[in-house]
């Protein structure tokens, strides 16, 4: 297939790669702008900042109460990860192992919260949560964030469990393992890599989940991404470098977990799990 390359095909290939490079270059330059600005004393009208300092991190830490915001973020993310695992994995196991009537409807039920964007269902959800006196505090934020993540865990874990041979479990039963031993000694070790991957993806997605947290959070239950939004929204109140220092803190929190997650999953998995289920 390589022999029939004409000049036009080569030009086309160059154009395509140029586009990719242009895209990535702009993205990296954007990130570099944020990082440089957070370390700059003053940056206006020049290619590079006049001088560098780390004091904006100190001021961002104090001004935006980053200490509290980070604690809330980790509480929310931790709870969402554990609860979506506790709810999602058993459901995925049931759907993978049993072919009960109405299974397609149940799968569709889990697909919907992943296909409908959070903005659309976020407002009715927040209304209901506020009526139940769960809005504006951390439990409401956790509940709202679980809505897309529980189905996500179910849909990621289902094919993973399907490829584990059920005869392994049957064999354990034959040798006299009770349900408890079957679960802890057979199923859990087999499922661990899948659960780890799914929960890491949930973690990364929840740190960056803006809309649902934004609609349900009160003053004391903002996560990092919502605090960042408010800071950018009220830009001018604070120094731009201070906002960018917070943006860098946010990027670091997200990217550290993304790097860990990428050790266990393929990058395409972050977007494509939904699709393969939707196609089926």
């Amino acid at each position, binding site marked *: 297939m390589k022999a029939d390359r004409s000049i036009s095909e080569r030009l086309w290939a160059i154009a395509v*790669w140029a586009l990719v490079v242009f*895209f*990535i270059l702009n*993205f990296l*330059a*954007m990130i570099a*702008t*944020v990082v440089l600005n957070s370390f700059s004393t003053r940056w*206006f009208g020049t290619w590079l900042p006049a001088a560098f300092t780390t004091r904006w991190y100190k001021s961002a830490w104090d001004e935006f109460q980053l200490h509290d915001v980070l604690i809330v973020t980790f509480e929310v993310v931790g709870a969402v990860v554990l609860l979506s695992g506790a*709810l999602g994995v*058993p*459901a995925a196991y*049931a759907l993978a192992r*049993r*072919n*009960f009537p109405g299974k397609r409807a149940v799968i569709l039920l*889990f697909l919907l*919260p992943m296909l*409908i*964007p*959070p*903005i*659309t*269902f976020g*407002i009715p*959800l*927040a*209304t*209901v949560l506020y009526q139940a006196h769960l809005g504006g505090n951390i439990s409401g934020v956790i*509940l*709202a964030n679980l*809505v897309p993540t*529980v*189905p996500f865990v179910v849909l990621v874990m289902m094919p993973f469990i399907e490829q584990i041979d059920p005869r392994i479990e049957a064999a354990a039963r034959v040798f006299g393992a009770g349900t408890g031993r079957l679960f802890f000694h057979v199923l859990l070790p087999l499922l661990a890599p899948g659960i780890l991957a799914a929960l890491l993806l949930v973690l990364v997605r929840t740190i*960056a989940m*803006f*809309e649902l947290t934004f*609609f349900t959070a009160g003053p004391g239950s903002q996560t990092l*991404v919502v605090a*960042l*939004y408010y800071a*950018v*929204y009220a*830009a001018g109140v604070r120094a731009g470098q201070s906002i*960018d220092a917070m*943006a860098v803190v*946010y990027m670091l929190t*997200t*990217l550290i977990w*993304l790097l860990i997650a*990428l050790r266990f999953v393929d*990058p*395409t998995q*972050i*977007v*494509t799990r939904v*699709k*393969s289920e*939707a*196609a089926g």
Partner: protein
Amino acid sequence: MSEVSLTKPAERPPLGVRLALRDLDGVTLLALPAVLFVVALFIYPFAYGFVLSFKPKAGDWLANYRRFFSDPFLYDTIAATFWLAIPATLINVLVSIPIALRVRRLNRRRVLTTLLVVPITLGTVLIAEGLLIYLGPQGWFNRVLMLVGIGQVRLVHNYTGVMLSLILSGFPFAFLLTLSHLTGIDPSLEQAAATLGGKARARFWRILMPLLAQGLAINLCLSFVQTFSVFPSAVLLGAPAGTTRVISIAAYQAAYEQYDASMASAIAMIMGFCQLGVVAIILASRSFWYRGATGGSKG
């Protein structure tokens, strides 16, 4: 259980066994908590919002919808949203095809896919903040434009800013979807076409595109639905009182500035209906393209 078998004919097994035969037993019940959760926090709120939208603060049951469609400040948001979402979706999905076609032959795909997953992970708020400086009047992008003699261009706090942020966050998503669809297509089909003398153009239109149609339709749907619900970048990077006053801003203002949950629900329902409508159109037009076996199945 014994009571059941006594009253029924002898050959009829007990209820538990009959249910187990239809795969309804203790294991199936494991799905129940998650199902109840989604019903309680997704289906119920949606139904609640739907009903609530017909119970306006004042006026008859259709008052919210009538108000929305008679006030240009409100109904214009639909056009503004489509005006952003449709070009952004088309650019993201269509540009992703030639790039994915190149990338799939690459051995070290992982470097590129990892790089592209970063903007998706960072999310729209961070991209908005980054672009505000990067594309701003003193940012690097404008400085390069001035250097090459094009001159300063206004790229933020307008339509262009939101569009660029939609491309920056939406293109990697569309690309990774297209790539995963393409790699699912059996390469021997294309090799067979090449052996039979099919040129690159013909192979693309006659072999790849029909096989890709299903995936592209889903890609278009997901990309559209995402761009249609643009919120943070429309506020931060756009002109939220002007050209980029999208429908999600109207819904947000109704809910959190006027505290009118009923009106906010009505707008959310209209937003959902628009998304559903476009998804239905895309999925229906897919069958014009191609009927038959889907995706990359080798059968």
